[in-house]
């Protein structure tokens, strides 16, 4: 384990879960508190926008072959799962009405997410007791790491419709109260880790010289956490300096670094749910 990797104890994670209360939905009762807009713009303090924008800084997968698609778990588990999409949807469903705050502080409200509670996955896959961290691995190479003690959900429907391609069809993760950027789309596998494995953003920013303290502050902040918006803004500044520099000024886009802005949704094979989808990434 490396000292630069953001870590939290179980108690710290549970405490931040408590701090999220009110900002996150409980079943079909939506949030009771609303996260204030973080930018000093004139107007009402809370500005919810109607359309749910889709951003992705890591390229979306070009093709998802639904004939071969399996949801998998591996690593520190006693019962590794490998489920087809149909089998996955046959698991007990959970639903929750949520607000969504993206890293750029865009607030949208009233998402009714349906999917599988992460506790169901834990019951099925039986991780070892010493497992503390998981890693969502996505089609297209993205990855996001979270504590196993968080409330999490795997989402396949939103407001009664299959979740759309720019928001991660067939499967995305939903971590209530976390910033949008930590909710990976197009989730394919979950690794149950022995210690915290660095995810895509951690590795990228570490290689570009990010300050570990800022990295840690960002990874433990969430919608209800109050102050660390400074850390987030600091991080966003860093983000625009490094990441966007690559995207805009590198002649390869940032492709040479494994990064590109995604401008199209994946193509699905063996599944015409979204055959006529007009991409809007």
């Amino acid at each position, binding site marked *: 384990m490396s000292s630069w990797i953001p870590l939290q104890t179980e108690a710290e994670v549970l405490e931040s879960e408590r701090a999220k209360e009110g900002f996150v939905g409980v079943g079909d009762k939506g949030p009771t508190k609303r996260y204030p807009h973080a930018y000093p713009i004139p107007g009402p303090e809370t500005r919810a926008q109607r359309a749910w924008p889709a951003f992705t800084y890591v390229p979306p997968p070009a093709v998802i072959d639904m004939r071969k698609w399996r949801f998998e778990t*591996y*690593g520190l588990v006693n019962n*590794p799962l490998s489920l087809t999409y149909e089998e996955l949807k046959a698991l007990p469903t959970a639903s929750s009405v949520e607000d969504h705050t993206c890293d750029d502080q865009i607030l949208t409200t009233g998402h009714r997410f349906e999917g599988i509670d992460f506790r169901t996955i834990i019951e099925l896959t039986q991780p070892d007791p010493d497992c503390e961290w998981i890693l969502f*691995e996505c089609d297209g190479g993205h990855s996001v790491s979270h504590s196993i003690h968080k409330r999490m959900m795997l989402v396949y429907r939103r407001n009664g419709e299959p979740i759309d391609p720019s928001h991660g069809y067939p499967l995305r993760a939903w971590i209530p109260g976390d910033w949008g950027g930590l909710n990976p789309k197009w989730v394919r596998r979950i*690794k149950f880790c*022995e210690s915290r*494995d660095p995810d895509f953003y951690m590795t990228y920013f570490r290689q570009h*010289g990010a300050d570990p303290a800022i990295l840690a502050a960002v990874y433990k902040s969430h919608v209800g956490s109050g102050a660390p918006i400074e850390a987030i803004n600091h991080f966003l500044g860093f983000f625009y300096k490094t990441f966007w520099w690559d995207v805009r000024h590198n002649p390869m886009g940032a492709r040479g670094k494994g990064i590109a802005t995604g401008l199209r949704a994946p193509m699905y094979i063996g599944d015409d749910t979204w055959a006529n989808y007009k991409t809007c990434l």
Partner: protein
Amino acid sequence: MIVDSDTTWHFACKLNQLPLGGMKHVRVFDTEVLLVRASKEDIVAMEPWCPHNWAPLVDGKFNPGSMKLTCCEHGMQIDIKDGEITRGPNGGPAGHYEKCFRFPVKVERDRIYVHLKTPQEVDAYYAQCGVPGILGSDALK
């Protein structure tokens, strides 16, 4: 792929998740690795992408008898004993392809661990190519 870690052995998956004569594409720390299990004790960890055009090797065919792995895309053949290329793409010559990189592996209790490259090893590789490495750069400061 830069490993910046106090330890260089990293957990990959449990032994029973890697079937005999089978392959598994796993993420190890910040790196993707292909695990191949030729026999009960014989586990090989290597780069998961084909050296010809980076097809995922896990989609290819592995023959545990001859220890040869055939890429699904153009049929390049890799001998996993030493990573040597034994047949080029589309049946062509193998000569000018570099060996496939193999990572050291160990099994402890029922868990598989992989030894990734350290920043020093990455730098040594770059030095041998006559290219500036990473330790002197802004990275890892």
